[in-house]
């Protein structure tokens, strides 16, 4: 539910008629807005400014606004000389693959557990729920060993993108929210389709997938964002600098480049998540609320 849909309830019109409430709450709102702009937007604006300011100016006067003009060359130098272009592309490829695995696992798994419901669905559900209670750190070392020395296939997956793509799919949260969404679809649709002779594959492609666009949108937005933000896992399994994503490269770039170019590289790393957030704001905010609802 969007927050704009509900009228304010705590402060009634009777409250608003009282001057203390009107001015007090009004002042609090102005303070909140100013605070949110400084805290939420300020650091990003500073980063954007620093990305196109000559390094020497940023170092000597970090809060000054272009005392000696702009340095747009920072962006070009970051993209070309520091190879941010390549790392950006790596990040895109990693995010795309992780997104694909998560969508496939969540959609097929959610469909099987919610609509097809085999007799062993309960057991799988319980095993999925159990993973929600296991802190991610428990998986870190054994997963790493598994990538270095996988069982059955005796071939290390270090420096292979599969080492990032496949484990990304193991998100119980995704499967559970997709399954819940399917649970709430009217059963009659499936039954009507089955009576019309639709097999499980037709039902999935023609009925369930088209209906599940909203929830798959939410899963997609969070899948791409999570992959874009990921640091520790790609740091461990992608050791070849030419294959690493931006987030893994940034600490190294920092120690090897001047500040202006480094800030430009960081700005480039932020652009996709910020643009995605502005475009898919509803999915983001609804998904976060969903997370709260599930956790609650």
């Amino acid at each position, binding site marked *: 539910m969007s*927050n*704009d*849909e509900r009228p*304010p*309830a*705590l*402060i009634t019109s009777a409250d608003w008629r009282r001057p203390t409430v009107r001015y007090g709450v009004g002042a609090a*709102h102005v303070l*909140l807005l100013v605070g*949110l702009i400084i*805290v*939420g*937007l300020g*650091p990003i604006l500073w*980063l954007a400014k*620093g990305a196109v300011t000559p390094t020497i100016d940023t170092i*000597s006067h*970090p*809060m000054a606004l272009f005392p000696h003009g702009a340095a747009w060359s920072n962006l070009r130098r970051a993209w070309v000389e520091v190879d941010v272009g390549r790392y950006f592309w790596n990040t895109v490829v990693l995010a795309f693959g992780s997104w694909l*695995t998560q969508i496939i*696992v969540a959609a*097929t*798994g959610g*469909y099987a557990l919610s609509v*097809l419901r*085999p007799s062993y669905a309960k057991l*799988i559900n319980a*095993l999925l729920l159990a*993973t929600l209670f296991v*802190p991610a750190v*428990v*998986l*870190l*070392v*054994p997963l*790493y*060993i*598994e990538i*270095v020395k996988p069982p059955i296939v005796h071939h290390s997956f270090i420096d292979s993108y599969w080492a990032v793509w496949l484990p990304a*799919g193991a998100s119980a949260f995704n499967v559970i929210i997709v399954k819940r969404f399917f649970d709430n679809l009217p059963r009659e649709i*499936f039954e009507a389709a*089955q009576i019309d002779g639709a097999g*499980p594959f037709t039902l999935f492609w023609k009925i369930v997938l088209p209906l599940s666009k909203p929830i798959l949108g939410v899963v997609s937005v969070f899948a791409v964002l999570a992959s874009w933000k990921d640091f*520790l896992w790609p740091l461990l399994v992608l050791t070849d600098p030419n294959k690493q994503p*931006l*987030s893994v490269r*940034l*600490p190294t770039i920092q120690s090897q480049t001047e500040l202006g170019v480094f800030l430009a590289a*960081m700005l480039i*790393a*932020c652009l996709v*998540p*910020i643009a995605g*957030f502005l475009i898919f704001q509803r999915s*983001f905010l609804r998904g*976060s*609320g969903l997370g*709260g609802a599930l*956790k*609650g």
Partner: protein
Amino acid sequence: MDAISEIEVEGAALARGRYRARRTPATWVRNGGLSTLVFLLPLLFVFGAFSWYPIVRTIVMSLQHTNLVEAPTWVGFDNFRAVWNDPLFPIAVKNTAYFALLALIFGYPVPLAAAVLMSEARRGRGLYSALAYLPVVIPPVVAVLLWKTFYDAGSVGVFNTVLGWVHLGPYPWLQSASWAMPSLVLEATWANAGATVIIYLAALTSVNAELYEAAEVDGATLWQKVWRVTLPQLRGVLLVTMILQIIGTAQVFLEPFLFTSGGPANSTLTVLLLIYNYAFGNSLGGDYGMATALSLMLAGFLAVFSLAYMRATRSWSTE
């Protein structure tokens, strides 16, 4: 069984969404058992290989001496003993608890107050929530490295520059053992508070407006309505966000890793950083047994803590 009753049986099975006629492999396939398994295959493979198997493997590895070169040997609880006797262990535990406590002090009341205020804005609620959520979408590595520049002790340090305008500082944000941890928590709070705000906003929409009206009829002031209606109505969500925040901050890694590498003088060495150092910090080969032992100790502690927390707050969270 005649044809009509067979159709009825199949119809009933359809209605339940599963097929349970005579059970032979052939009917199992014909009734969709195989195609169900095909749909479950991606889930079973990915979770089996990258979630369930590693969880079991952790327990095995914590009882072994493993370094990937020699064959692993069983050592019983030696890894756990080694962690327990490591002089860094109590330091890491203390620091992690300190981080979690500071994160609660910095990050718990502010999002709540902000969310209550935001939900009562007459217009522009979308703008408020977008501004609050913006730091959450910034990649954490960028956030930490950007704040590292803000904290810089030299002339580029934004915080010391701005505080210098009002003749405060300069402060040793990351350089001093007593300042480093609060500085880390400040950045972590900035990076995560927006997500909590959104959860509270969603919860606030479910508060029954009639309760406010009833309170008003009883002559409650605005302040009393906040304390007597809003907060009690949110307590379920408040309790959950608190335990989730504690579980999250107990696993803090990125901030100490990128800001300070655990320094100065181990003042920001957290449990996760210690796990990382056991497994990956030594270029000669990791001590995977100690790393898995410590991660299991942390997981066990969090499980016990969560259970105790839920038990202690059960009477309070339900009416």
